[in-house]
């Protein structure tokens, strides 16, 4: 069931859209912000509310890389893998993160804390190499900073 807060937020988004369809992505984001990811059940609830079929909404959900259709950790690390970051040492940062978290791209750490995802250009090349955890941007990152940054997240 969508919570009253979720419904209210989705209705606000609907007021700015010219059709229920157009609010689909916004609605998914609103719900994902609270639940972490979009399960099949969640997808159906949102679709029902927007009077769309689950398949219609899922076609949108699966297109965008920041809508998570699989369970993710409590925090999502987006590691920028664009060329500016590559020039400034993305590869060794990736290795260090892999080693520290024991996971590769698309995986979640055993304690359920972090999911690691590649993200093409975070648009912060002046701070390359960068990564984003939830909504917070970090960079330029050196290997010895990783521990301190990760420690901020429970």
């Amino acid at each position, binding site marked *: 069931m969508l919570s009253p807060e979720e419904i209210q937020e989705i209705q606000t988004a609907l007021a700015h859209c010219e059709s229920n369809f157009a609010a689909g992505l916004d609605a998914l984001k609103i719900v994902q912000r609270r639940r972490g990811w979009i399960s099949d059940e969640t997808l159906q609830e949102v679709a029902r509310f927007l009077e769309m079929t689950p398949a219609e909404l899922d076609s949108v959900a699966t*297109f965008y890389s920041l809508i998570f259709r699989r369970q993710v950790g409590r925090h999502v690390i987006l590691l920028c893998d664009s*060329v500016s970051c590559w020039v400034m040492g993305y590869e060794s940062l990736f290795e260090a993160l892999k080693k520290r978290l024991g996971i590769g791209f698309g995986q979640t750490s055993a304690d359920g804390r972090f999911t690691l995802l590649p993200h093409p250009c975070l648009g912060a090349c*002046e*701070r390359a190499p960068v990564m984003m955890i939830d909504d917070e941007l970090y960079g330029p990152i050196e290997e010895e900073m990783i521990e301190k940054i990760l420690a901020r997240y429970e």
Partner: protein
Amino acid sequence: MSKNRIQLMLCGGTGCHSTGSKKFEKALQQELEAKGLAEEIKIVETGCNGFCAVGPVMLVQPEGIFYQKLKVEDVPYLVEEHFLKGRPVKKFFFVEQKNKATIPHMNDIPFFSNQVYRAMRNKGVIDPEVIDEYIAREGYFGAAKALNEMTPEQVVEQIKISQLRGRGGAGFPTGMKWAFAAASPGEEKYVLCNADEGDPGAFMDRSILESDPHAVLEGMIIAARAINARQGYIYCRTEYQLAIRRLDIAIRQAKEYGLLGENILGSGFSFNIDIYQGAGAFVCGEETALMRSIEGKRGMPRPRPPFPAHKGLWDKPTILNNVETLANIPQIIIKGGAWYASIGTEKSKGTKVFALSGDVNNIGLVEVPMGLPIRKLIYDIGGGIPGGKKFKAVQLGGPSGGCIPEHKLDTPIDYEEITKVGAIMGSGGAIVMDENTCMVDMARFFMDFIQDESCGKCTPCREGTRRMLELLEKICHGEGQDGDIQSLEALAEVIGQSALCGLGQTAANPVLSTLRFFREEYETHIKEKVCPAKRCVALLKFEVNPEMCKKCGLCFKACPSEAIAWKKKEVAVIDKSKCVKCMSCFDKCKFDAIF
């Protein structure tokens, strides 16, 4: 604007935020209050100043003193010296790389003095969250003029005279685009702003939105007037949270001031703007994909024609302009198209914003007049290559663009001239690469990006780039064969001719352009199984050349797996059974002795 004796324009762009500008601001405010200066000195958090390389930065107005690399612990000294005793503090001045001279005034620093600010004229000068500060700098004067003194035809005419071309990449004449949409029949029309900046190495639009959001809104109001639209959307990527927050504030303030909404400035004209956030899909920066995405569908491109000027969002006539293009519009209306066209080259007028990044000293955002040689962009403004290394190439235009090598650096910044040398103007990402960059590996990296981001709708882009990536990976792994280069070229040609949208058609450009200027590097990889830049791990031996080794021990200290044996005055030896091929020793060796 204010009765304060001094205004401290502290950069609040993403770059400075992440180097601690917020903490600095808090400490500074506390110190000013403690010293009883808070009444006369005001801190203003501005948008991105552009000189991100030396952040956090702060401009002291009206003196024009520029401080860099500020830290919380510097606050008491700075306040005591400068704001109590009136002595600007030399140790926070900018220091020139070449002769170590300190430069106190912002306008004397080469990074700033070689630039011409038009699209970014308010950056670092106003508080982007206060509409009055924008208005004080002729803000919304252009909209007022367009709404009350000009006909839609006259607006389009001025944009045509300015010869402004789309700054998102393709460079289509903006005036023509507007004229088509204006002539399209229909009651409902739309003005869209493309803020889905996704090209690797590009962060111009983000900075403009963060530092001067009202300029973009004003540009959209003028565009709406020109084509008679009542609704506008800004499509912004969700990763740009600060930009979205500032846009939100700007839209709210503009509504309060009667600059958006019904009957704007009593002109009888009504227009509204909403923000639409993407969710991580590079292809949504393509115009038809962007419109699909706003409609709530999968953001896939569709073939053109029909062009958006006839059938765009919800099949209604639509114009889509990029952030930088729109930020230029208000000044063109105020000062006239001829003013804008007074600088630049024959076919490229005005200025262009570039985002310098990679192996360059002054990383940051710059705005330069068209016609400036690229060499000046990189050396005079960018300050050259760090660490005494040699320049190898600058990548312009992201995944649709190409690399410009040393011997083409005198190419002027001009749409046609840059295309001639195999790159594109693009949206303004300029990634500088030094001699340690392997061009084959870089092409592989771009192809990997395109593979990830291909929406999958058309076969040439979806499958063709996959085949190209496989070939490039083979070459980088030392398994390249005769004929691979020809296969790459053949695939590139087919993809270029048959892909559905602009992104697909240009997907092979990074390969084509590196083949054009660095073909021998591909050949060396394939025939000799050697990577000249020493970047492709599979082609490296991880051995020390005893003749070049200076016995300094830097590699020994850098090795994380104790694979290097070294004693004072002895040549280092790498034990391959322990080596994890992490490249730390390569990075540390100053004498090129490891191969």
